[in-house]
């Protein structure tokens, strides 16, 4: 286990959005974070790569351990943390003025990767994101010419290019059509061979289809955390059961 939180509390302007969350993320597996809207799923995810502190009034207490080191500890550089923990957002966010190639290379440039190695890494990342065949003939075309699903896979490729150890995905398919969603789900399952993935989703079927572990958040608390199969068949908390059987949320 190389990513874990200990009594993690995150606030906006002093108001807690998640409280005392302690959770161990299994490496090379997909951990799903589910729960009704506003329960703190995104906030939790953004604590894992120190994005939360960029929000207005965002503060964090507790610890997030990456390979045993507290990423909120003294002397830890948030920029270095984000290079090891990549993130994919809900809406595709390609850089609109850059070509497809430059989008994927963007993270490499700020990481100081040598120019001559770049082409190879860009190709590998696009291939990992199952996008290479669709874009290999127009690498220098605009990223905006891609469909929404392709744009999201481009963003995944962009996040993979810097070779993070952990990949955080915040509802990565919620803006996509069913076919594109399926492709992203397949992609996640492939990627877990090499990456630790934490995915926020409000789609329970998706969580049960792709994830190995699931955490259920409710009103800022981690109510239950278990193997996905167990949680969906035999939840131990009444609130979890109510949620997955569709009685609220």
């Amino acid at each position, binding site marked *: 286990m190389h990513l874990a939180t200990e009594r993690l509390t995150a606030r906006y302007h002093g108001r807690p959005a998640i409280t005392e969350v302690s959770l161990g993320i299994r490496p090379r597996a997909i951990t799903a974070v589910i729960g009704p809207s506003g329960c703190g799923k995104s906030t939790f995810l953004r604590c894992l790569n120190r994005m939360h502190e960029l929000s207005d009034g965002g503060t964090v207490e507790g610890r997030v351990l990456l390979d045993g080191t507290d990423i909120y500890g003294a002397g830890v550089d948030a920029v270095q943390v*984000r*290079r090891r923990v990549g993130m994919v957002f809900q*809406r595709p966010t390609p850089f609109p003025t850059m070509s497809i190639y430059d989008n994927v290379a963007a*993270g490499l440039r*700020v990481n100081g990767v040598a120019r001559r190695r770049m082409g190879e890494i860009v190709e590998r990342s696009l291939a990992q994101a199952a996008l290479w065949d669709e874009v290999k003939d127009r690498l220098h075309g605009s990223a905006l010419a891609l469909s929404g699903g392709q744009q999201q896979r481009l963003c995944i490729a962009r*996040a993979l290019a810097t070779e993070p150890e952990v990949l955080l995905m915040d509802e990565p398919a919620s803006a996509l059509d069913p076919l594109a969603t399926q492709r992203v789900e397949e992609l996640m399952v492939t990627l877990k061979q090499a990456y630790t993935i934490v995915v926020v989703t409000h789609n329970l079927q998706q969580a049960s289809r792709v994830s190995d572990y699931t955490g259920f958040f409710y009103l800022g608390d981690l109510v239950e955390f278990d193997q996905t199969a167990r949680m969906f068949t035999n939840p131990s908390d009444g609130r979890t059961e109510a949620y997955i059987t569709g009685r609220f949320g």
Partner: protein
Amino acid sequence: MTIIAPNLGAAARGTAATRRMTRGANPADRAYQAVVTALALALPALLLALIVELTINAWPSIERFGWAFVFTATWDPVADVYGAGPLIFGTLASSVVALLLAVPMAFSVAIFLTEFAPRWLRRPLGFLVELLAAVPSVVYGLWGIFVLIPFLRTVVVPPLKAAFGWLPFFQGVFYGNSMLAGGIILAVMVVPYIAAVSREVLNAVPSSQREAALALGATRWEAVWMAVLPYGRAGLVGAVMLGLGRALGETMAVTMVIGNRHDISLSLLQPGYTMAAAIANEFSEATTSLYLSALFEVGLTLFVITVLVNAAARLLVWRTAPGRAVGTRAL
């Protein structure tokens, strides 16, 4: 019968409503519409009238000097010969100097205000920058004469000449009133405009773009450089063009410090002149009708150049970001 009657009634009501509906707008509405339309048309008409008036008045000079007016440097009221080359050169040169100084400063201010300043500081600081735009031009002129020029003479120019005196831009003796002083004054005056529009542009860049860059391990500054500025580039070009438009037409402050000499010199330390300044200064002295006509032609030229700059600005904005230029509404 009893079944049909209500239907007839409904039909009758229907036709009455239709008649009301198709009668057109009510009279007050129509009058209001007419007034607004007339006013809206009056503005372009005024513009057209202005062009016609300028051209008619400039015509004697246009006929007499032709293109030489634009390309020659003699401005001799005694011999009644006029060439506006130095004025055109001076206007463009002082504006270019102003932009070279103002753009980095204005962009820095805008970037600081939107990306780096603590939140509580953003509003008051932004307000102060915009306040600079409210200072009357003549006050800048006074500041130029009594503060800027002495400062340039004692502090800036000696080391500048020592280091770069071999460049054509820093030749000759510096007396104070100069292209350099004019350019700096203009720069100070256009910074608030460029900064204010740039700030709006950068504010309009979605935070998802910043976060996407930061999540890749970019520093704050790298995120600005790789995500924020490119996203807003069309608007930023617009902001610069807006500043250029201001600089081209500025009169009072410039004429107080630029030296007002009909000369073309590459050296920033030498005096120059601008079109706007010449018109303002020489209008009351224009004794011959050709002199007056030449000044009108200067005005026409300035007008044309300003229109071209604005057209170029719009073209650039469209070209760099067709359809979704951030912040270009402000233009």
